[in-house]
């Protein structure tokens, strides 16, 4: 555990130096997104009545989904450049490996750091949801751990994959054909019931949809109506995180040991 703490300390020390540079993308841009889509466009959505959104205003509908989706995007990013950089460019992971830290500590410590970053982002975003009046119940606070869980269900597999990569060349493809379509079609901006039937079934394969639906249930307090579905969401997300974290310790460890 203390070994993991040393990795966290390293990441926190470097993060402090670039805090302001990343503050915009981490904190401000999701808020701008929420304002433009939730308030600006939301005004036009709400004119048509709220039946399709289950009686919610568009801002109330969008806010929890956007929380999960924002954390997903940041998590995917954090699991790419810092991991590839640590293994191949700055080689900080190799430097760590030259100390009593084990490859497992290094992999887990870096994933834990991503989780902390995601917790920071979701806390700020949740505060904004409350300020804008888009929260329905005090359970909104549970949106934070669920968003972090959603984020990690992306960060862990992507980190595991990047443990096998030497350049970020596939990064473009992961983002354009993975992250962006999931961001747009996982029930964040509109209910998946609006999708053609075959695509609705596909949404079950999207970790983001599980995260969005769960976050929305908690933030709006509607999760009690569908306890079974909500439980499935939790199980799916936890399973992905556990398996992928294990995979990440293997791929990152292998790269450290074999060079």
């Amino acid at each position: 555990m203390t070994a993991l703490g040393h990795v966290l300390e390293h990441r926190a020390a470097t993060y402090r130096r670039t805090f302001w540079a990343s503050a915009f993308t981490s904190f401000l841009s999701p808020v701008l997104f929420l304002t433009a889509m939730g308030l600006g466009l939301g005004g036009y959505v709400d004119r048509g009545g709220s039946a399709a959104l289950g009686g919610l205003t568009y801002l109330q509908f969008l806010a929890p989904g956007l929380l999960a989706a924002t954390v997903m995007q940041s998590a995917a990013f954090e699991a790419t450049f810092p991991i590839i950089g640590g293994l191949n460019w700055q080689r900080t992971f190799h430097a760590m490996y030259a100390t009593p830290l084990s490859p497992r500590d290094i992999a887990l410590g870096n994933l834990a750091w991503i989780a902390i970053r995601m917790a920071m982002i979701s806390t700020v975003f949740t505060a904004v949801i409350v300020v804008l009046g888009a929260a329905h119940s005090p359970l909104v606070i549970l949106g934070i751990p669920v968003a972090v869980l959603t984020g990690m269900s992306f960060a862990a597999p992507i980190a595991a994959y990047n443990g096998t990569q030497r350049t970020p060349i596939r990064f473009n493809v992961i983002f354009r054909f993975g992250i962006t379509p999931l961001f747009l079609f996982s029930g964040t901006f509109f209910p998946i019931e609006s999708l053609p039937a075959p695509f609705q079934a596909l949404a079950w394969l999207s970790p983001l949809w599980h995260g969005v639906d769960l976050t929305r249930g908690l933030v709006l307090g509607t999760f009690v109506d569908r306890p079974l579905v909500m439980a499935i969401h939790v199980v799916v997300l936890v399973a992905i995180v556990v398996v992928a974290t294990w995979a990440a310790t293997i791929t990152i460890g292998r790269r450290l040991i074999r060079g």
Partner: protein
Amino acid sequence: MTIPTLPLRVAPPLLFGSRRSLRLIERNLYVYRHTWLVIVSGFFEPLFYLLSIGFGLGRLVGTVPGPGGADIPYALFVAPALLASSSMNGAITEATLNFFFKLRYQKTFDAILSTPLSAADIAVGEMGWGLIRGALYTIGFLVVMVVLGLAATPLLALTLPAALLISFGFGAVGMACTSFMRSWQDFDLIQLVILPMFLFSGTFYPLDAYPEQIRLLVELTPLYQGVDLLRSLAVGVVGLDDVFHALYLAAMGIIGLLVVSRRLDKLLLK
């Protein structure tokens, strides 16, 4: 609407350099032959946005007031705006991150200047390459619009040169800004301008949502010129303000290119 091709066909010999800039385009073609997937993937991003926001969310929105005040379906409202902002984004990525990498790290331009090409040839050549790429994406997006039944008027064809004008304006100003950048961190400043513009320049909803003062402010932003120009053409309600939009974007491009070729002269030759 011959302005976007102007720098390539007319301006080089007169103003900015020579036809040698075509060699630079040829160079980029060779380089990108190996990473064609990156180029192809750029086409899908606006398409995904169109399907999700335009059609998925559009079903909840219904109609919104378009240019001229008549109600139009939301997909038709948002499609030209997505084309405008993706032209901006494409041009900015190429003109900032990629341009900076070639300028400061890969030293591509230092190598090019040891040939008969001049700094102005580089500025024009990079711009020409950006326009070719922009044209491919725009044609792809317009074909999708036609297939999805969003071709409301033959004027839609004119959005091709208009979108290139957006690439021209933003690309030139982007390169000009990049020539002043010191480190990668400075690019956050560019995002600080680009993202709010993307979200608030009438891209996703009409400007009536704003109070009067904010509306006037938004109408002065460069992206609004592009969004309103493309939307007018796509809906088929064209007015004098569209001439202003076109001139605004062309001025951005010409001033930007002049600044870039001077800065490159200074950075690389002294």
